[in-house]
């Protein structure tokens, strides 16, 4: 089917709005007014509403798109990881790639539409699938301490999220927290969970 020039323009404008919203929200947070997104995108304010009738429609589309992209990326990298060390290294890589938007999402999630919770859960469940496969294998081999999977998972996320949510204390300006602190967080976490003495608890 032939796509008319008008339809192509419409799709391009929609894409431009989504990309601009992603970058503006990454810098300024989710409470940014739609007029700022329109100005940054170089389009009229009314044009945003022609594509997304409400700000929630725009946010829901953006969050769903983000969850799918980050989830797929995590899945691809995590799938090849054969040890908890490698899996968490890959997790840090993905977080660094999406750091600004992801930090906004975890900091502001409770004030956002329900879609934000689903997006958050999709991302974490993808990670939890690979994490539980790898960690349960390591526990049965005796290389990781015998602790509940959900506590091992939540301790790792709690640690990483604390640094991301308090970015202003841990980095200067726009520096990546994950780049600067990721190796230290990973090495500390592994020291806590590894069964170094080979004792099966």
């Amino acid at each position: 089917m032939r796509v008319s020039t008008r339809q192509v323009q419409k799709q391009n404008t929609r894409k431009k709005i989504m990309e601009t919203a992603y970058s503006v929200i990454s810098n300024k947070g989710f409470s940014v007014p739609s007029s700022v997104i329109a100005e940054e995108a170089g389009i009229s304010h009314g044009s945003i509403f022609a594509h997304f009738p409400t700000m929630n429609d725009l946010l829901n589309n953006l969050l769903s798109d983000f969850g799918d992209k980050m989830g797929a990326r995590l899945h691809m990298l995590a799938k090849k990881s054969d040890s908890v060390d490698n899996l968490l290294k890959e997790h840090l890589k993905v977080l660094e790639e999406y750091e600004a938007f992801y930090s906004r999402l975890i900091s502001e999630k409770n004030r956002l539409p329900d879609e934000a919770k689903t997006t958050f859960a999709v991302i974490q469940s993808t990670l939890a699938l690979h994490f539980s496969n790898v960690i349960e294998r390591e526990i049965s081999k005796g290389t990781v301490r015998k602790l509940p999977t959900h506590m091992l998972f939540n301790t790792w996320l709690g640690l990483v999220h604390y640094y991301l949510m308090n970015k202003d204390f841990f980095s200067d300006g726009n520096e990546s927290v994950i780049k600067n602190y990721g190796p230290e967080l990973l090495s500390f976490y592994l020291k806590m969970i590894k069964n170094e003495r080979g004792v099966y608890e």
Partner: protein
Amino acid sequence: MKTCIACGMPMEDISDFAGNDPGKDYCVHCARPDGEMQSFEEKRENLASFIVRTQGFNENAARKIAEDMMRKLPAWKDYFC
């Protein structure tokens, strides 16, 4: 690349597909032991108990999240009309 119609997982390798069959639209995690796709109720309960086991959520919250995740997937669209 295909994604599972029942859970959204990307299916890249043959081992990702139910019964190692790339013709299938659902993944190994969404198949019953006999190879058929799990029902809506089975998938919701499996997803919720997976979330509780791996992330420690409260059971009701896990079931709600499981439904929200399923809402977006083609296999379950008739359940959310």
